[in-house]
C-alpha cells in the first residue's frame, strides 16, 4: 500500500479549507448586500416615485402654455386649465385606475378606516356631507364642474403621504382621488376608500 506524502495531504486539506472559507465569506457578503426593507415604506416610496414621475411629465406638458398669473379676469386660468387637461389626457391615454396608487391602495384605505373609527357617526356624516356623490371617479375625467371641493379632514391629510405641489387628495363618492389642481383632472383613485356611514 502506498501512502501519499504528508506534505501533499496537507496541501489538499488546506485547499479544501480555502474553498470552504471562500464559500462562507461569499454567503456572508451576499447576505449583507441584500438590504432588508420595510414593505410599507417601500410601497409608499414607490407610490411617491410614480407621483413624482407624473409631476415631471406634467411640467414638460406645460411647456409652451401661457403661465397663469394674477389678473382682473380669470379667463386666462380657464384657458390654461383646459389646454393642460387636453395635453395630460393625450399623454396618459390608456392610463388606468391604480397606475399611481398601485399596491398602496390598501394602505390608504386602512388610514381612512382607522380615522373613521375615531369619529362619531355624526362627525363622519359631516365630513362626507359635501362630497360629490353622484359622480363616479374615472382616470382622466374632469372633477365635476360646480361640485364642491369637499374639505378633507386635516387629521386624515396629516396621515397621508405628502404630495408635491399641484396634486391633492379629495373624496369623491366612496373613493379617495388624486386630483390635479391646475388641470382639474382625476389622476388616479382608490375605490371604496370611504367607509359607509351607518
Amino acid at each position, binding site marked *: 500500500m502506498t501512502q501519499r506524502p504528508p506534505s501533499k495531504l496537507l496541501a489538499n486539506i488546506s485547499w479544501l479549507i480555502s474553498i470552504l472559507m471562500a464559500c462562507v465569506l461569499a454567503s456572508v457578503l451576499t447576505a449583507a448586500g441584500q438590504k432588508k426593507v420595510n414593505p410599507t415604506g417601500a410601497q409608499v416610496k414607490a407610490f411617491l416615485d410614480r407621483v413624482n414621475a407624473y409631476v415631471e411629465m406634467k411640467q414638460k406638458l406645460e411647456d409652451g402654455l401661457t403661465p397663469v398669473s394674477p389678473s*382682473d379676469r380669470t379667463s386666462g386660468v380657464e384657458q390654461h386649465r383646459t389646454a393642460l387637461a387636453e395635453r395630460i389626457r393625450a399623454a396618459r391615454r390608456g392610463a388606468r385606475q391604480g397606475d399611481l396608487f398601485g399596491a398602496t391602495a390598501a394602505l390608504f384605505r386602512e388610514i381612512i378606516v382607522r380615522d373613521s373609527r375615531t369619529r362619531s357617526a355624526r362627525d363622519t356624516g359631516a365630513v362626507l356631507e359635501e362630497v360629490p356623490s353622484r359622480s363616479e371617479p374615472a382616470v382622466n375625467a374632469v372633477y365635476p364642474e360646480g361640485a364642491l*371641493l369637499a374639505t378633507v379632514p386635516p387629521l386624515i*391629510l396629516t396621515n397621508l403621504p405628502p404630495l408635491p405641489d399641484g396634486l391633492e387628495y379629495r373624496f369623491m363618492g366612496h373613493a379617495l382621488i388624486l386630483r390635479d389642481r391646475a388641470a382639474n383632472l382625476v389622476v388616479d383613485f382608490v375605490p371604496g376608500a370611504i367607509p359607509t356611514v351607518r
Partner: protein
Amino acid sequence: MRMHRVAPFAASMVLLGLLCTTPAAQAPIRIALPNLADSVKFVAIGDNGTGEKAQYEIGALMAQARELFPYDFVIMLGDNMYGSQRPSDFVKKFEAPYKTLLDAGVKFYAALGNHDKQENRFYKPWNMNGERYYTYTKKNVRFFVLDTDYLDRKQQDWIENELRSSDDEWKVVYFHHPLYSSGGRHGSEVDLREILEPLFIKYGVNAVFAGHDHIYERIKPQSDIYYFVSGSAGQLRRGDLKRSALTAAGYDQEQTFMLVEIDTDALAVQAIAKSGKTVDSASMPRQKRIPALPPISDR
C-alpha cells in the same frame, strides 16, 4: 393707489341692484368704535358671494359705514363666491356689490372657502397673488390667511414658520372654517382646532376670524385668544345660532358684517346688521403674554 375699474355693464347692474334693494326701514349707522386716527381699521365679511339682494344691501351699508369709519381694506373669510364662478360672475357677485368701495381704492384680501374655486386665488382684486395661503402687514398688525379647505402638512409647516418668525405687535389669523362656533349647521371644526390652536397659543395669536356658519358670533376668549364667526354677509341661516357656553354675543336674524379697529392696546369690534342696527360691539385689551420660546432645535 390704483382705482379699480369695473366693466361698464357692471355699473348699470350695481345701480339697478341698489335701486331695487335699498331697504325702506334702514337705521342710520352709528359707529361704536374708538375710531382713532392711527389705528388699523378694516371690515370682515364671510360667506358673501351670492350675488343676491342681501349681498348688495350689505355692500351699500359697508360703503355707508366707511364715510364714518374710514377703513381701507376688507378681509374676506371665504365662500366669496357661490355657484357659477365664470368671469361674468365676478362682476355680479363681487365687483358690483362693492363697486363704491373698489372705486374708492379699498383693498380686499380673501381667504378661500369650500364654495370657492381654488383658481380664484389668481383673481387680482382679492390680493392673494396666486397663493392659497399668505401673509401681509398693516402697521402693527400682521395678518395670516389660511386655506382651511385643504390644510396639508406643507401649509401647517408654513403657518408655524410664519407665526414663529413674526414679532408683530398683533397677530390676526383668518380662514373659512371656525375653530369655535355655536352654529347649528356646522359648529366648531375640531380637527382644525387640534392642529391650529396649539400653534396659535404657542406663538401668541391675538384674534381669529372665520365664517362657514351663516351667523355672527363673538366667542368668549379661548386660551386667551379672541375668536369671531362672521359668515352672514350674503348668506344667512336664520335661527341657526345655538347659544352655548362659547357665546359671548351673537346674531342670526339678518345678514351682518363687522367693523374692526386695532390700535396698540386694544381690539374693538362692531357687528352691523342689514337693517343698519348694531347687534354687537366690544373692546378687548391686547393680551399680555410671555413671548414664546423658540423651538429646541433653534436654540
